[in-house]
C-alpha cells in the first residue's frame, strides 16, 4: 500500500495525518455496511488536502475517523489512522482527548448549531485555553486575541454575545478561532461554507487561507464544491463509494482528470461561463451505489462509459499518472475520452421581440413583525418575455424568495403593486386569481421533499394537478399524465411510488412535472437544484432547458450559484435588500462595467478553474430589511463608495445601456474606468460585529413566523 | 321505715293529678315496668326524686339510664370530636341535618333534654305541668341563666323562640313538628320565669316537642334575626372560640355557665366531608370521639380494638314507599308481596352488621314504648309472595323504578331490594339522585321523593312516633310519598295522638301496626342503632339518638 501512497511534500517528520487502508463500516438495520473501503491517504505538514465527492461517498466519515469520533453504530474494521505518526486506534480515551485538545481540531457545517446557544462566545472560546491549562484571566485574554486573529473587529463585544446574536459568518469565524486556538497540527474542515452566502463564503475561505499560512497548520478540507477545492487546496483526492479513485495536485487533476468519475464531475458543472445555448451539461449515467452495496472490482464500473469486463473482474491498482497524481482506473490514460452521457444538442437562442408575458411594476412587500415594518421588497420591476429566462441573484435576505412568493400570490404583494400577465392585472392573492391565471404561473420549489406530499403516490400528486388545473378526468387524464411523466424523463413504472421512495433528482422531476401540468406560461424556479448533487443538478438543468425549448415557457430562475444562473439565464437581475440593483443581459452583467454589488458578488465566487480575479471584500453582513440604510441601500458596504451622495440619496434604476439597468450614481463609463483596478482594501469596521444578523427578520422567514 | 315511705307516697298521690295516679296504678299493677314508669313520669313533669319514691326506691337506678362506662374522666385537656360537616348554613331555625344540630347543641340549650332512653331531663326549664287533658302546658324557667353575650335569659326569649319556630313565614325546620300542635302566638310568657303553651289539640307527648328531640328548639334571644354562625349565641357550657367553615369549631369553657363547669378545658369539633374520612380520622387519632357513625361508613370501627363503640336503639330508619295510587303498586297484594320478598335478615345482619332492630313495616319501632311487641314480625316468604302476585294477576312480572338518594347505605339498600324482589319476578331499575335533587322542593309534583313510584327515603330519629305516623302516612300528610289515603288509618292516628296513657296508646298502636302490615304503603325494613365511637382513653361523652353530642362531662381517663 505505502508503495502507492504518495510521499508528502518534502517533510522529514511524520505526516500530519495518515490513513492507511482504512475501512469503516456502519451497522444499519443489523447489517454492517462498508462506508470507507480501504482509503489510504496522507497529508503532509503544512499541506492542504482536499477531499471531494458526492453526498454519501464517505467524506465526513473519513474526517471524523481522523478524530476517532465514530457513531455508536460505526467501527473501524481495518487499517489505521496516524496523527503525527501516533496510531489513534491504539490510544486510550484520555490520550485521544489530549490529542483533540492539542493536535487535531475540526470545523464543520452550520456554525450556529456548532456553538452552544446558552454560553457566551467568550466563555466558549476561553474554555479551550482553560483546557490547555491556562487560568481564567489568561484564557479570556488569549480568547480575545484569537478572536482578533480571525478578524473580528470588536472581540470584546463579541465575547459578551451569544451565538444566536451573530451571523452565520461570524459564528463560523468563532468556530475557526476555537479550532485554531491551541495551534493544532491538523485542521479538518467539513463543508465549512455550505449554507453561507457567496460573499461570506469568500471571506471565510480567505480567512482560513490566511490563518493557515500564519499557523502553518495542515488542512483536510472536505467539500462537494470543486470551485472551493480549487481555491483552497494544493492536493486533492476524489472519493467515490468510500474509495479514493483519484488523487493528485489540484491544478493537475483539474487539467488532466484521469478517472472517468472525476471527468464526469468536472463536466457536470457549468464552467467558464458556458451557457445553455452553447452546450448542454454532461451528466453521469447511473447512480451512486448504496451504502455498503456489493460492488464490482472497480467501484465505478456500473456508471463508467469505458467499462470493460476487466473492470468487473480486477480491482484497478492506483496507477501513477504523473508524480503524485494517481488514478484507480484501468484506462486512466484515456479517461477523458469518456463519451458524453447527453448528446442532446444545445438549443440555439433566438431573440424574440414580443410583448412581455409577465410584468411587475412597483412591486412591494412589507412584513409587520413586533410592530416594526420590514420592507422585504421595495419597488421591484421587471418584465419577462415568452420563452426567456430571467436569473435572479442576491445574498440571502435580499428578497429573492419573497419576490417569487409574491409573484405566484402565496404572500400577496402590497397594495399598489402591479403584476400583469399578458397585460391583465393579477390579484395579489392566488386564491383571488382565475384558474387560467393560476395555471399560467407556476413554481418549482427548492426542496422537493417539502414540496411533495409524502403521503401521496406520484400518480396522485401529478394527477391531482391535472384535474385541478385542467379539469381533466379519467382516461384523458391518465394519458396526459403518462405524457407528462415522459416529458420529464420520469419512469412511468414508478408512478405508484411515494416520494420517500424516490431519489432527490426524481422527486425534483415530479415537482417539475406538477408545475408543467397546467401548461404554464411562466415557471418560477426557486433554487431548484441547490439540494442536489452536481451530477444530478446537471440533469435537472438540462431538463429545464429542454422543456423551455419545447413549451416556450418563461423562467424566473432563482439561485445563489452564479455559475448555474449564468448558464441558464438570458437576462439576470441582481437583488439587494428587496431592490433590483442591476438588470441586464446575462453576458454583460458579470463583466465590467457592472454594479459594484454585482462586481463584489461575482468576485466572491471561486471558480473551478481556480483562475480567480482579485476578490472584492464586502464589508459586513447584509443589513436588516427592517432598517435599510439611507440613500443607496448598498452604500454601507459598497467597495466603490463615492461619498455623501451615496449616503443621502437613493439612485433610481437607470437604463445605462440598451436593456441594461442599474441603481448607482456612477455612470457606465465611470464604472468601466474605476473597475479596471480593484477597490482599496477596507478594514473590517465595528459595523460588522454590531450588525444584527437579521436572523428572525429575514423576510423569507418572516412571512412564516408572522 | 315502711310507714314513713307509705306516708310519703300518699302525700304525693294526693298532690298529683289523675293521669299521674293512673300511671302509678299501672306500675303497681305491673302493666308497665319501672323504667317506662320513670319515663312517663318525667314526661308528665314529675321529678326523678318523686318518681323514685313512688317506684319504691330512693333514686331510679342511674347506672341503668346511662350505659356502663370506663373510668371517670379527669378534668382538663382538649377533647376532640368529629362530625360530618353541616350540610348547610348554621342557622338554628333552619338547620335540618345531623352535623348542624351537633354544632347547635354545643352552645345552644333546650327547655328539656331527651336522653338516649327518651327520659326527659330539665335544662332551661326547671319543671313543667299540664292541665287536665294536656291541652295547655306550663313550663317554669330556670333563673340565673345567661346568654353567651351576657344578657340574662327570660320567659320572653323562650316564648319568642317557639313563636318563631311555629311561624309559617319564617318557615323553620321545626314547622312540621308543630303542625297541628302549636301555632304561632300561642306561646306566652305569663311571668318572667313562666311560659305557657296553648296547644291546637291535646298532646300527651308535648314535652318532647320542646326537648332536644325537636333539635331546632334551642332557646335564642327574643331579638334574634339570623347571623347565628357569627356568634354561636346560646346558654350552654361551651363558648365558641373560633369557627372555620368546612373545617370545624373550637370551644372554650363558658365561664358564666349556670351549670357544672365542663370537665375538659377546651373542646374541638372537626368537620369531615364524609364518613369514610371521619373513620380514618378517629383511627388516625385525629379525633377522640365520633358523635355518630353508620355501619355503611364506619364498618371499620366496629372491629377496631382501639375504639369503644356505644350503641343504642333509635327510631332512625329508612322508608321504602310504594305509590298506592299508581300502577303497579295500587294493588295492595303487590305491595304485600314486595314486603314478603325483602330479606330483612340479610339487611340487618349483612348491610347493618346486626347493628339494627328489625322493622315491621310500621313507624312503631321497638324503641317506642307504645309499640305492641306482640304483633308478629313479617318474615321473608317468597312462596306466599308469588301467590299474592299471581292473585293480583302479576305472575308475569312487575316492572318499576326505584328512586333513592346518595346517603349512607341507601344506594346499597336499593341494590339489595332490587335483588330481593327479583326473586318474585319483580324487576326494579334503580335511579340514584343526589339529596338536593331527590327532595327537590319537597312539594308534590316537584319532588322525586314525593312523586316516584317507589322510593327509599331516610328518616332521622324521633323521640315519639307521632310525626312518623302523621306526615308520611295520613291522607293530608305533607310527606306522604306513598299517596296513602286511608280514613280508617287517619282516625286511628288521631286516637293514638290524643291518648295520654300508655294503655290507650298501645291499643291504638296495635291497630295501626296491623293495618299498615295489611296495606303496606311503606316498608320499614329496619331501625338501626345509634353508634358512637370513642377512643379508649376518653369517657363521659353523652350522645342522643337524635345526633346530639354533649361533651361537657367528657374528658380523658388517667
Amino acid at each position, binding site marked *: 500500500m505505502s508503495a502507492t501512497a504518495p510521499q508528502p511534500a518534502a517533510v522529514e517528520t511524520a505526516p500530519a495525518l495518515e490513513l492507511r487502508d482504512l475501512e469503516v463500516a456502519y451497522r444499519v438495520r443489523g447489517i454492517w455496511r462498508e462506508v470507507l473501503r480501504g482509503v489510504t491517504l496522507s497529508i503532509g505538514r503544512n499541506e492542504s488536502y482536499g477531499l471531494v465527492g458526492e453526498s*454519501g461517498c464517505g467524506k465526513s466519515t473519513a474526517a471524523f475517523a481522523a478524530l476517532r469520533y465514530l457513531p455508536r453504530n460505526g467501527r473501524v474494521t481495518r487499517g489505521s489512522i496516524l496523527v503525527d505518526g501516533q496510531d489513534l486506534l491504539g490510544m486510550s480515551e484520555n490520550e485521544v482527548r489530549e490529542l483533540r485538545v492539542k493536535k487535531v481540531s475540526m470545523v464543520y457545517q452550520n456554525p450556529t448549531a456548532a456553538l452552544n446557544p446558552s454560553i457566551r462566545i467568550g466563555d466558549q472560546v476561553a474554555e479551550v485555553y482553560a483546557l490547555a491549562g491556562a487560568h481564567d484571566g489568561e484564557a479570556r485574554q488569549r480568547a480575545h486575541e484569537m478572536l482578533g486573529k480571525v478578524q473580528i473587529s470588536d472581540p470584546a463585544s463579541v465575547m459578551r454575545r451569544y451565538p444566536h446574536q451573530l451571523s452565520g459568518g461570524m459564528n463560523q469565524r468563532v468556530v475557526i478561532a476555537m479550532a485554531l486556538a491551541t495551534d493544532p497540527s491538523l485542521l479538518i474542515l467539513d463543508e465549512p461554507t455550505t449554507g453561507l452566502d457567496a460573499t461570506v463564503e469568500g471571506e471565510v475561505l480567505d480567512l482560513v487561507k490566511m490563518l493557515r499560512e500564519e499557523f502553518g497548520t495542515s488542512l483536510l478540507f472536505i467539500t462537494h464544491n470543486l470551485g472551493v477545492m480549487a481555491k483552497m487546496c494544493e492536493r486533492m483526492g476524489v472519493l467515490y463509494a468510500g474509495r479514493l479513485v483519484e488523487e493528485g495536485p489540484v491544478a493537475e487533476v483539474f487539467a488532466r482528470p484521469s478517472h472517468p468519475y472525476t471527468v464526469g464531475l468536472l463536466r457536470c458543472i457549468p464552467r467558464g461561463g458556458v451557457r445553455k445555448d452553447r452546450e448542454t451539461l454532461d451528466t453521469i449515467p447511473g447512480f451512486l451505489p448504496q*451504502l455498503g452495496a456489493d460492488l464490482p472490482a472497480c467501484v465505478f464500473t456500473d456508471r463508467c462509459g469505458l467499462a470493460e469486463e476487466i473492470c468487473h473482474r480486477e480491482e484497478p491498482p492506483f496507477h501513477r499518472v504523473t508524480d503524485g497524481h494517481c488514478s484507480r482506473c484501468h484506462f486512466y490514460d484515456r479517461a477523458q475520452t469518456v463519451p458524453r452521457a447527453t448528446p442532446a444538442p444545445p438549443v440555439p437562442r433566438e431573440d424574440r421581440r414580443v410583448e412581455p408575458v409577465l410584468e411587475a411594476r412597483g412591486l412591494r412587500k412589507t412584513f409587520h413583525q413586533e410592530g416594526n415594518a420590514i420592507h422585504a421588497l421595495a419597488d421591484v420591476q421587471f418584465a419577462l418575455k415568452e420563452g426567456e429566462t430571467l436569473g435572479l441573484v442576491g445574498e440571502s435576505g435580499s428578497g429573492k424568495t419573497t419576490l417569487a412568493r409574491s409573484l405566484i400570490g402565496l404572500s400577496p404583494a402590497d397594495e399598489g403593486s402591479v403584476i400583469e400577465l399578458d397585460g391583465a392585472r393579477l390579484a395579489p392573492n392566488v386564491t383571488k386569481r382565475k384558474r387560467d391565471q393560476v395555471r399560467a404561473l407556476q413554481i418549482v420549489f427548492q426542496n422537493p421533499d*417539502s414540496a411533495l406530499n409524502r403521503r401521496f403516490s406520484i400518480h396522485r400528486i401529478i394527477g391531482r394537478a391535472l384535474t385541478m388545473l385542467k379539469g381533466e378526468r379519467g382516461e384523458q387524464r391518465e394519458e396526459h399524465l403518462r405524457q407528462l411523466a415522459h416529458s420529464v424523463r420520469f419512469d412511468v413504472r414508478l408512478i405508484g411510488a411515494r416520494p420517500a421512495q424516490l*431519489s432527490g433528482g426524481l422527486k425534483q422531476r415530479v415537482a417539475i412535472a406538477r408545475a408543467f401540468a397546467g401548461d404554464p406560461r411562466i415557471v418560477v424556479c426557486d433554487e431548484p437544484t441547490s439540494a442536489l448533487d452536481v451530477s444530478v443538478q446537471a440533469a435537472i438543468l438540462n431538463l429545464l432547458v429542454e422543456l423551455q425549448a419545447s413549451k416556450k415557457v418563461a423562467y424566473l430562475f432563482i439561485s445563489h450559484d452564479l455559475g448555474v444562473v449564468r448558464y441558464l439565464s438570458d437576462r439576470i437581475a441582481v437583488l439587494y435588500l428587496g431592490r433590483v440593483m442591476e438588470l441586464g443581459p446575462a453576458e454583460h452583467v458579470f463583466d465590467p462595467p457592472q454594479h459594484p454589488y454585482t462586481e463584489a458578488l461575482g468576485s466572491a465566487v471561486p471558480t473551478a478553474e481556480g483562475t480567480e480575479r482579485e476578490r472584492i471584500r464586502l464589508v459586513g453582513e447584509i443589513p436588516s430589511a427592517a432598517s435599510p440604510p439611507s440613500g443607496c441601500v448598498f452604500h454601507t458596504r459598497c467597495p466603490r463608495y463615492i461619498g455623501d451622495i451615496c449616503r443621502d440619496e437613493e439612485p433610481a434604476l437607470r437604463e445605462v445601456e440598451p436593456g441594461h439597468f442599474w441603481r448607482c450614481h456612477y455612470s457606465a463609463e465611470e464604472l468601466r474606468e474605476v473597475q479596471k483596478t480593484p477597490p482599496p482594501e477596507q478594514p473590517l469596521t465595528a459595523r460588522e460585529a454590531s450588525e444584527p444578523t437579521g436572523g428572525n427578520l429575514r423576510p423569507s422567514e418572516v412571512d412564516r413566523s408572522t | 321505715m315502711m310507714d314513713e315511705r307509705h306516708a310519703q307516697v300518699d302525700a304525693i298521690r294526693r298532690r298529683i293529678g289523675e293521669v299521674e295516679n293512673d300511671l302509678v296504678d299501672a306500675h303497681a299493677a305491673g302493666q308497665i315496668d319501672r323504667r317506662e314508669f320513670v319515663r312517663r313520669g318525667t314526661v308528665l313533669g314529675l321529678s326523678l326524686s318523686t318518681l323514685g319514691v313512688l317506684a319504691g326506691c330512693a333514686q331510679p337506678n342511674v347506672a341503668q339510664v346511662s350505659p356502663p362506662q370506663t373510668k371517670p374522666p379527669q378534668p382538663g385537656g382538649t377533647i376532640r370530636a368529629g362530625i360530618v360537616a353541616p350540610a348547610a348554613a348554621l342557622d338554628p331555625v333552619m338547620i335540618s341535618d345531623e352535623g348542624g344540630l351537633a354544632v347547635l347543641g354545643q352552645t345552644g340549650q333546650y327547655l328539656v333534654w331527651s336522653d338516649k332512653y327518651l327520659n326527659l331531663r330539665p335544662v332551661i326549664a326547671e319543671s313543667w305541668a299540664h292541665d287536665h287533658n294536656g291541652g295547655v302546658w306550663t313550663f317554669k324557667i330556670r333563673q340565673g341563666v345567661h346568654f353567651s353575650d351576657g344578657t340574662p335569659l327570660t320567659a320572653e326569649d323562650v316564648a319568642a323562640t317557639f313563636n318563631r319556630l311555629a311561624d309559617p313565614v319564617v318557615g323553620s325546620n321545626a314547622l312540621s313538628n308543630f303542625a297541628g300542635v302549636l301555632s304561632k302566638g300561642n306561646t306566652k310568657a305569663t311571668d318572667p320565669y313562666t311560659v305557657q303553651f296553648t296547644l291546637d289539640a291535646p298532646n300527651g307527648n308535648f314535652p318532647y316537642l320542646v326537648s332536644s328531640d325537636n333539635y331546632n328548639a334551642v332557646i335564642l334571644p327574643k331579638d334574634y334575626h339570623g347571623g347565628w354562625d357569627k356568634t354561636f349565641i346560646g346558654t350552654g357550657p361551651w363558648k365558641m372560640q373560633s369557627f372555620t367553615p368546612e373545617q370545624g369549631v373550637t370551644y372554650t369553657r363558658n365561664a358564666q355557665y349556670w351549670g357544672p363547669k365542663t370537665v375538659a378545658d377546651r373542646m374541638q369539633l372537626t368537620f369531615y366531608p364524609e364518613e369514610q*374520612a371521619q*373513620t380514618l380520622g378517629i383511627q388516625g387519632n385525629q379525633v377522640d370521639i365520633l358523635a355518630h357513625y353508620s355501619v355503611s361508613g364506619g364498618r371499620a370501627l366496629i372491629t377496631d380494638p382501639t375504639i369503644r363503640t356505644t350503641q343504642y336503639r333509635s327510631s332512625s330508619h329508612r322508608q321504602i314507599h310504594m305509590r298506592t295510587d299508581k300502577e303497579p303498586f295500587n294493588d295492595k297484594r303487590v305491595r304485600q308481596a314486595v314486603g314478603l320478598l325483602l330479606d330483612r335478615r340479610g339487611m340487618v345482619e349483612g348491610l347493618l352488621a346486626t347493628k339494627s332492630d328489625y322493622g315491621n313495616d310500621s313507624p312503631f319501632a321497638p324503641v317506642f314504648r307504645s309499640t305492641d311487641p306482640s304483633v308478629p314480625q313479617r318474615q321473608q316468604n317468597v312462596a306466599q309472595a308469588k301467590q299474592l302476585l299471581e292473585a293480583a294477576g302479576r305472575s308475569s312480572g312487575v316492572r318499576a323504578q326505584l328512586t333513592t338518594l346518595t346517603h349512607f347505605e341507601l344506594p346499597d339498600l336499593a341494590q339489595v331490594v332490587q335483588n330481593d324482589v327479583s326473586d318474585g319476578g319483580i324487576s326494579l331499575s334503580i335511579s340514584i339522585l343526589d339529596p338536593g335533587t331527590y327532595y327537590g322542593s319537597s312539594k308534590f309534583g316537584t319532588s322525586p321523593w314525593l312523586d316516584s313510584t317507589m322510593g327509599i327515603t331516610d328518616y332521622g330519629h324521633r323521640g315519639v312516633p307521632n310525626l312518623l305516623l302523621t306526615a308520611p302516612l295520613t291522607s293530608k300528610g305533607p310527606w306522604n310519598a306513598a299517596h296513602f289515603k286511608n280514613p280508617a288509618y287517619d282516625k286511628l292516628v288521631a286516637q293514638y295522638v290524643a291518648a295520654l296513657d300508655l294503655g290507650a296508646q298501645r291499643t291504638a298502636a296495635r291497630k295501626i301496626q296491623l293495618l299498615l302490615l295489611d296495606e303496606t304503603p311503606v316498608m320499614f325494613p329496619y331501625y338501626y342503632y345509634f353508634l358512637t365511637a370513642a377512643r379508649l382513653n376518653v369517657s363521659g361523652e353523652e350522645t342522643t339518638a337524635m345526633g346530639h353530642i354533649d361533651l361537657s362531662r367528657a374528658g380523658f381517663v388517667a
Partner: protein
Amino acid sequence: MSSFGEPIGSSVTAGEPPVADDQLSVPGPEDTRVMRRERMAVLLHSKTFIAGAVILAFWIVCAIFGKLIAPDDPLLTDPIKALQAPSSAHLFGTDTLGRDVLSRVLVGARDILIVAPLATLLGTVLGTVLGLVMGYFRGPTDDVLGRIVDAVLAVPVVIVGLLSLVALGPSTITVIFVIGVVFTPVIARTVRAAVLTEREYEYVAAARLRNERTPYILFGEILPNVLGPVLVEFTVRLGYAIFTIATLSFLGFGIQPPAPDWGLQIYQHYGLISGGYWWPVLFPALAIASLVIGVNLLSDGISQAFER
C-alpha cells in the same frame, strides 16, 4: 438510536442511505410496506409495547367475556356474606353487599373500556379538527380559539369534569361527552403544533397553487401527514381518559352504582381499609393501575415506533 458520541454528519450517512439521480432508494418500490413492516418490527421488539399490549388484551377479553369468565354474578348481592376475606369460595373475597369482588373486578373492565375509548375518540376527532383549523388559519381564528383552549386548559381536567358532570348529571353518556370535550383542547394543541410545521411545507403552497379548496387542503393534504401524531396522542389520551374516569367515579361523579366500576368500588370501600377489609379496595386498585399502565406502555411503544 443516535446518542452521545455520534457525529450527526456521518450518522446521516449511516441512517438514511444517500440517493442519487434516477434511482429508487432502498428498500425499493414496496418501500411503504417495508416501512410498515419495520415499524411493526420495532413495535414487536419493544418490550414495553408487548407488555402493554398483553395487559390491555387481557382486560379487553374481560370486558367482552367478563360475564362468562366471572365465577359469580357481579351484581348479585348477598348481605349475609358481606366482607368475607378472600377464600377458595371467593378468591378476591366479597364486598359490603356480599358480592364477589373477583367477578366485579373482571366485569368492571367493561364500563371503563367502553367509556374511555369513546370519550377519547370524541376528543381526538374534535381536537384534530380544531387543531387543523387553528394551525392552518393562524391569525385571528387561532388567537380566539387559542384563548378559549387556554381558558379550558387553565383549569385541571378533574375540576372541569366535576363541574360539567354536576351540571349535566352523572351518566355514562355525559361522562363520555364531558371527557371528550375536556380533552379536545389538549389534543387540539398537539395537532395545531403539528399543523404549524406541516403548513410550512411547500406541498400546501402547491395545493393552493392549483386552486384547492381549503377543506381539501386541511383534510386531504395536511391531515394524512399529521395522522401519526394524532394516533400517538390518541393512545396517550386514552391512558388519561381511564385515569380521569376512574378519578371521577372515585369522586362519585363518574359511572354510577350498581355498575361494578373500579373507581366506584374503591370509592365505596376505601373507608374500610382501616378496618382490615383491604380486598374490596386493593383488587380494583390493582386493576386500574394495571390497565392504565398497560395503555401507557402501549402508547409509549407506539410513539417510539413513530419517532424513528
